[in-house]
């Protein structure tokens, strides 16, 4: 279908789609801060590059969480996985090379995701409760691991690949965002795997009746979610030249808000990767704008909360009205 053949009604339908909402709010917030902060460096390319770099871990987490939400699960453990994977990566770097450290850190994510998934499926308990529990466990382990000490990273190659480096003229953190976001987009929109993820989230009984292995699909989704969080941990460690148990601590709310406002349903069946990425950038812009306007971190937290409630309100309203 080409653009020319779209009727007015179809255009209207597209413009009113839930997925389109993020574009409006993105534009509106951008305009708002651009006017409000016209005498600052807000509306400069370098400031936006900064925002993208700073939010790269959040973006990766948002992309991962989209997979969990697509199958109808929530994953609250992602913030804690960030801290543990960063610490494990940093500790391994003191003894081995980058490949093993990266594999070790990502394995943290795979393991937590696997445990989450197996517990949810075996016990048939809501993912909210299970991941709340594993969040506590993983946070505890991360604190115990180094006795609340931070672990510095002096390996320059590591900080290049996961922080300050540049590839093809763009910051490597943007590169990571594009690669992971692109892969996730292809999986969810172009591959049968994504179709099955969304089918499981949309109507698990129908998916099972049509022969989709529902349990396995859900397990993969949770592994994807926490492995993405583990990668986010590496990106934090690379950018900050070290790992600390506080990493990712405050990110959960931001990530859920970003994904929800991006058009992904919190009840499964609909996922929007571009929305998740834009949503996380939106959160970055809001943070950045609020800082430049002189607001405190406490006030930023309130703003994040308001956005989440707003996004959820819209989502629920749509759910009821079909």
């Amino acid at each position, binding site marked *: 279908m080409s653009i020319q053949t779209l009727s007015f009604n179809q255009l209207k339908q597209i413009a009113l789609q839930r997925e389109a909402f993020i574009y409006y709010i993105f534009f509106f917030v951008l305009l708002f801060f651009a006017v409000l902060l016209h005498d600052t460096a807000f509306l400069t390319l370098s400031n936006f590059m900064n925002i993208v770099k700073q939010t790269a871990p959040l973006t990766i987490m948002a992309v991962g969480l989209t997979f969990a939400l697509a199958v109808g699960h929530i994953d609250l453990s992602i913030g804690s996985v960030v801290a543990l994977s960063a610490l494990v990566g940093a500790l391994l770097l003191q003894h081995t090379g980058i490949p093993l450290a990266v594999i070790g850190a990502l394995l943290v994510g795979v393991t937590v995701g696997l445990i989450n998934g197996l517990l949810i499926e075996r016990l048939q308990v809501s993912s909210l409760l299970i991941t709340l529990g594993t969040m506590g466990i993983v946070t505890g382990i991360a604190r115990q691991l180094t006795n609340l000490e931070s672990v510095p990273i002096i390996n320059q190659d590591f900080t290049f690949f996961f922080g300050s480096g540049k590839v093809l003229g763009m910051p490597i953190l943007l590169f990571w965002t594009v690669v992971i976001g692109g892969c996730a987009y292809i999986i969810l929109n172009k591959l049968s*795997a994504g179709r099955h993820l969304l089918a499981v989230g949309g*109507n698990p009984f129908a998916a099972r009746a*049509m*022969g989709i292995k529902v349990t396995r699909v859900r397990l993969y989704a949770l592994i994807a979610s926490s492995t993405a969080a583990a990668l986010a941990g590496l990106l934090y460690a690379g950018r900050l030249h070290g790992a600390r148990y506080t990493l990712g601590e405050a990110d959960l709310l931001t990530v859920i808000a970003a994904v929800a406002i991006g058009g992904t349903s919190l009840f499964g*069946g609909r996922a929007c990767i571009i929305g998740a990425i834009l949503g996380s950038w939106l959160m970055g812009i809001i943070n950045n704008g609020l800082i430049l306007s002189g607001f405190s971190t406490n006030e930023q937290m309130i703003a994040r909360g308001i956005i989440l409630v707003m996004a959820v309100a819209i989502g629920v309203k749509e759910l009821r009205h079909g």
Partner: protein
Amino acid sequence: MVRSALDQVALELASITKSFGGVHALQGVTFTINKGEVVGLLGDNGAGKSTLVKCISGIHAPDSGEIKVNGNAVFINSPEDARAVGIETVFQDLAMIPEFNIVQNLFLNREIKHKNPLLRWLGWLDTKAMTKRARKSLNRLNTRIPSYKEQIHNLSGGQRQAIAIARAVNWGADIVIMDEPTAALGVEQSAQVNDLIKIISSQGVAVLLISHNMQHVVETCDRAVVLYQGRSVADVAVAEVTKEDLVGLITGAKKIAA
């Protein structure tokens, strides 16, 4: 009715039993369906209709008895097994994903993959080919659909039913089981579904129709099999009995040697 070319048994059930704990849901069900025949499965609530359907479609495994498809004994332990031998079930809730569009639902878990071997290995979807085939199979059922990009939850009950039936037939099913296909439909849409059933049976598909609606059974079915307390108690040609006879058989007031 002349059906010489189609007078071959598509599905044969012999002494099927199934118990859940102490409840003997099925205590010996025996009947056959020929190719191109529409057989109504009747019975009161609790007579064992749903259990029997689940045994044939692979959701439950029967405790004993034999299922033969086209003359060959088959063991059906999962929905995949049922599908592999050519049995498709149109479930009462239609097993649709409300957020998916028509093509996505038609090809759920049987997506057409891209021709390029590498992309095919990745599971890359060939949406164009699927849309084309969707159009073909819905046309064959005389079903008009506003747009193939329409999400399922925007369609009428009759259209959804048509898509569920098309999905079953699309996969070359020899036997289609339909669970109360008109239960939630209005008069006009029920008539459309009846037409659909006639079309697919004229194409040689054997149809097992579960229904509470006597009118519907009389209009569409060639034969009716009545279950009473887990047994098949009657197997009658619909043309030879009245609605009242059928009701009597269902309630157990009337008896015919099965």
